[in-house]
């Protein structure tokens, strides 16, 4: 059997890989991908905890399902926004959206 810690290690590493990507990526699509990594890392945790701690129940399971669904929705909207930005600015790097400043 595999101890639950191992899952947690994997998910931690994947989470911070995602964080790294989120901060370091210049491209909005890349940033979005990093978010997917983070979400998946979280999913692993949910699932692993569900499996190991409460095998009889399905809370983590269902939660991951919802996360997957919401991630899909989020990606769809985000990509629509990115397309829009691209059309407006001509590029889709993170620096191009700084309207908040000034």
């Amino acid at each position, binding site marked *: 059997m595999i101890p639950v810690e191992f899952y947690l290690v994997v998910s931690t590493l994947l989470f911070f890989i995602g964080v790294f990507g989120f901060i370091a990526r210049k491209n909005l699509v890349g940033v979005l991908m990093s978010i997917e990594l983070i979400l998946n890392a979280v999913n692993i945790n949910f699932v692993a905890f569900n499996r190991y701690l409460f095998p009889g129940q399905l809370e983590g399971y269902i939660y991951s399902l919802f996360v997957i669904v919401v991630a899909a*929705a989020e990606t769809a909207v985000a990509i629509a926004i990115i397309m829009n930005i691209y059309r407006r600015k001509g590029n889709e790097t993170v620096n191009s959206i700084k309207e908040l400043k000034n």
Partner: protein
Amino acid sequence: MEIVELLTANNIIFVLLSMVILAGGLLSVLTEKLMHAAFYLFLTLVGIAGLYLHMNYEFLAAAQLSVYAGGILMLFIFAIVLVHRIGENSESVSCKKKGWAAIASFSGAVLVLATLFIYGNFANCPAADAFTESEVNMKLIGTTLLGTGKNQYLLPFEATGILLLACIIGALVIANKEKEEK
């Protein structure tokens, strides 16, 4: 526990899957070409689906594969293809930025792992063999998802449905906004 005892199929599969997941994730954030990144992301997602499968959560693994690897990744690829002009799909990120990102993620990882190993106490976990055999049957999933009792999730399910609808409409509106303005 001797080393040989560790070399069970379970363990080997887990290690392989973990390696695929982590390598995919790492490469996906490190590569400069977006298309490659999408491919590596695909590897990660598939690896995660494998992990689910490994835990006997077949439905979840299927959902992961179909929604993530099939749907979302496709969206990404579309986006990349649409947005990127040819020859420009490489990005060079300044080392400084990478450095800051590395600091944050590395220190975060160290902190979490350290906490995990110092304070983590999972000794009273149910035995592992409890789950290798027990499958989660579809019926249970179905009732949990669509039931209205305790620990059943009809209302969120409906809400998710509405959310998805809103997303579709929203995505359409956003994507078309520019045209309408023109």
